[in-house]
């Protein structure tokens, strides 16, 4: 079997930030903060986090702070959003510079920003314009967990909302009524796990969910062994994270074939220039690079830092977060 080309992936991630002249760089402003989180987390799992200059990272994050609303945008002068706020907090937490970087005023207004986005039904909107999605419930809850600012009102509302998103097949969707999707299963299970509420799921429903998740591993075709996100869809490396993290949270990692999945992820590497793509022979990107490596970490691939399936950060980092209920 091919091995994980660690050195090439490190070089690939490092080079991403050197391409400031390219049009693609400016075209991806909207997810730069997420991109930074994907790259840095991958480096942490590869034990090479020092490849990025910590000071540059702090400076960038500070420049993305939204003075008007609190929270962080994806790029300087962009509006704050829950998605980029979580990524910023995760990066600071991983480098253990959260308290040194945020002033008490910034911390306070970030907490206020996140809490203000919870709606009466317990869900969260991503920003003031009202888009609701279980992704935002997760990002809000994890952000507050990192800041150790969860409280019963917020948690009960979020848990209630998440449980309403569970479907006939045991899976979870974006909002109540929406089709089950593996990434949404992750955001919902992750939220329940952070809130200490996994036992709130009905047991028969949990059994259906486990079954649904394990059926994501595709048997036939050229991508055999890979995981898909919904029934009858093609496998994609990112589901190595979304599905696997769920199975790990539910303690059923052995319900799929880890070796076959490793093979699929490793085949999706660019052996020449580094990086991992969604499927073998496609264009690589930093998103799939992280989720491929994180998947391998959950599978116990040699010499990778163990990743926390709930937070998608190294376990040694999440061990330092005070867990709810406080």
């Amino acid at each position, binding site marked *: 079997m091919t091995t994980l080309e660690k050195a090439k992936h490190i070089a690939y991630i490092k080079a991403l930030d050197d391409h400031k002249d390219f049009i693609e760089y400016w075209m991806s402003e909207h997810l730069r903060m997420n991109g930074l989180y994907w790259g840095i987390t991958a480096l942490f799992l590869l034990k090479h986090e020092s490849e990025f200059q910590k000071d540059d990272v702090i400076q960038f994050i500070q420049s993305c702070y939204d003075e008007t609303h609190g929270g962080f945008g994806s790029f300087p002068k962009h509006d704050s959003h829950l998605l980029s706020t979580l990524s910023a907090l995760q990066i600071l937490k991983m480098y253990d510079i959260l308290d040194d970087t945020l002033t008490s005023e910034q911390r306070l207004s970030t907490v206020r920003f996140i809490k203000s986005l919870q709606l009466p039904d317990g869900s969260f909107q991503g920003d003031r*314009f009202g888009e609701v999605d279980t992704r935002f419930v997760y990002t809000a809850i994890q952000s507050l967990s990192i800041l150790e600012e969860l409280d019963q009102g917020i948690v009960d509302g979020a848990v209630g909302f998440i449980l309403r998103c569970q479907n006939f097949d045991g899976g979870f969707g974006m909002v109540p009524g929406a089709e089950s999707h593996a990434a949404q299963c992750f955001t919902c299970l992750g939220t329940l796990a952070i809130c200490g509420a996994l036992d709130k799921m009905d047991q028969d429903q949990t059994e259906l969910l486990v079954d649904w998740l394990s059926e994501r591993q595709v048997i036939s075709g050229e991508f055999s062994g890979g995981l898909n996100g919904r*029934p009858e869809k093609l496998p994609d490396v990112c589901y190595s994270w979304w599905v696997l993290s769920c199975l790990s949270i539910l303690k059923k990692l052995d319900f799929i074939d880890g070796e076959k999945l490793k093979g699929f992820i490793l085949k999706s590497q660019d052996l020449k220039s580094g990086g991992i793509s969604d499927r073998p022979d496609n264009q690589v990107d930093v998103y799939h690079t992280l989720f491929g490596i994180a998947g391998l970490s959950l599978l116990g691939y040699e010499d990778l830092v163990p990743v926390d399936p709930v937070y998608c950060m190294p376990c040694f980092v999440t061990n330092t977060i005070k867990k709810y209920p406080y």
Partner: protein
Amino acid sequence: MKESKLYSDKSLFRTGQLLNLNPELYTIWNFRRDILTNFKFKQIPDTDPLKKTAALHKLIISELQFVQAKLSQYPKCYWIWDHRRWCLLNDSQSDWKHELDLISMFFQADSRNFHAWQYRRFIIQCYKDSLSSEDARIQVDWDEFKFTTKMINKDISNYSAWHNRSKLIEKLFIGSSVLKDDNDVYLQVFNAKDKLKFLRKELDLIKTAFYTDPDDSSVWIYLKWLFGDYYIKDLPKNESRKLLEDTIKDIDELNELETEDNGFDNQWCLKSDLFLLKSLLKLLPKDDSSESWKERVDTICDKLIQLDPMRKNKYREHKLQIATES
């Protein structure tokens, strides 16, 4: 422009240019909404309420045309779908029927696009909210139910349609109003709240579907739901038992044909048998013929371990469960 809150036609034009380059720029969508709210909407004279509504509607229509052009290019971009939702919620004269036609166009390109499906549920909800009588609202759900039948008949592998069907069935069983349509069996079943009759009818559809493509997982996952608590707990035990036994027989017949053709068992037949047998065992009194059923479960697990080795640990756990229960 954004920083100085310069809300003008020129700013609006500029946001359009930027979004043409990159529709993922969520901050620009935000700015565009701010311009519309704080500038364009306010330009409309307040004098005549009717004229004001009409002018606003006209403005939103032109915005929707811009959104539609973007969506056709990027049918999976969250921000664009969200902007369309925002537009419709700001217009008291939104044309819901027009939106449904638009969605059908997206389904022609990709009948599993979960953005389009979610948007459809949103539109249906808005449309229902605009109706004054409960009778009219439930009629909309009934039409949606028929729409899922249509989509499934077109392609039984459309899991998104099966999912939506499950949601609509729950609504139709709750609804207190009487549905009116031609002499439709489903309609009579919903009016009578007769879950047993519904199951008999639905199982006919399932049977056609699994004979059409026995390797398609969508139908099999849906089948499990039909034998879950939602139905079973409302049926007399003997009826549930008979339905389960009949369905197992049907699946076994299909599996025999499949085995003749291919030389080996059909996995989905076995997986479904396993689920149904376990449900049956829950219904049977302990002293009944349950031992022979248990042996069948055990044999099926052994076969599945051979046929579907990626999930062998799951089947081993089933074996263990059955063994410890006896």
